[in-house]
């Protein structure tokens, strides 16, 4: 956190290299957050670039009231929300139904031990299937699950990024998980 503030202070004084270091440090974070919310790599790349463009132009207005990463997550999430609202859709209309083959593969992955899932192809397949399930969720659920499960933020950090209370974080995450569980119900035997 201290290091980010130092880099930002250097950048504000005109040191372009400090900005480059910040981009290098956070590009994966921003890209994966956007990808998980938007569900499309091409779009994620474009939006991630716009996020850094905004950081570049708005760095002067960052007062340091939160950590740099919280500010960056806020810009990222807001940019994604803007993009989704611009298109006036809450759920991206990608194919969200799982094929029989995908269901079997997912069951297979869950049944195997972590160290057995080493093949790149299986990992990629798994990634696509999870993303498909995410794409079928409403915008709010996708954002909160991304911040928790993909980025591993604490409830406190999520509440700052999304500007909601800790109680809401708890409830929204619970509901998002319930919806995801319904989408992946084929993995679980009937109760």
């Amino acid at each position, binding site marked *: 956190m201290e290091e980010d503030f130092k880099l930002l202070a250097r950048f504000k004084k005109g040191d372009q290299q400090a900005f*480059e270091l910040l981009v290098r440090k956070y590009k994966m974070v921003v890209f994966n957050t956007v990808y998980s919310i938007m569900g499309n*790599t091409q779009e994620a790349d474009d939006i991630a670039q716009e996020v850094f463009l905004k950081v570049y132009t708005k760095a002067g207005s960052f007062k340091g009231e939160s950590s740099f990463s919280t500010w960056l997550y806020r810009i990222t999430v807001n940019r994604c929300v803007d993009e989704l609202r611009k298109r006036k859709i809450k759920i991206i209309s990608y194919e969200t139904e799982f094929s029989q083959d995908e269901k079997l593969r997912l069951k297979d992955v869950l049944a195997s031990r972590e160290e057995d899932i080493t093949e790149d192809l299986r990992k990629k397949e*798994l990634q696509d299937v999870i993303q498909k399930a995410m794409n079928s969720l409403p915008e709010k659920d996708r954002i909160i699950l991304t911040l928790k499960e993909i980025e591993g933020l604490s409830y406190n950090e999520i509440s700052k990024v999304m500007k909601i209370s800790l109680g809401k974080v*708890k409830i929204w995450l619970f509901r998002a998980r319930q919806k995801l*569980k319904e989408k*992946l119900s084929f993995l679980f035997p009937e109760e």
Partner: protein
Amino acid sequence: MSCKEFRLLLSAYLDQEITEDEEEKLLKHLQACSGCARELEYLKQIKRLFLLKEKKEPEEFFETRLFARIKDKERQPIWQVYLPAFKKSILVVLISFLLIVGFLNYKKFFYQRPTEVVSDLLIETRLEENFEEEILAIYYGPPSIEERRLGR
């Protein structure tokens, strides 16, 4: 506490975001309730799926493309940079202005004001007076200074 309330706690328990007291109550409940224990297993499996998910890499030359975009933006004139951001506000201000001007002037377009009618009558009367003077001038020539003083 009901099963519904315990299930809300399960989600926070998975994220290690519950108090010691809540955890103690939950663990006791899980020993007695097979439904909630099964629910916890499902949630753990979903969490595991996310843990197995690998991070994706952005497209090639991310930084190079970004810095080219920054240079492009810096070369743009200032109004081109800020106009898109204020486009909506400008439109709202313009529409509000037109509505206010329209509201204040709509009477002008639809009604003739009574004062204008009165002034029209005055003009007509004045025209008639001039007409009389002109006829007298044709018959008797223009009035002399004395006649003008007496008001012919």
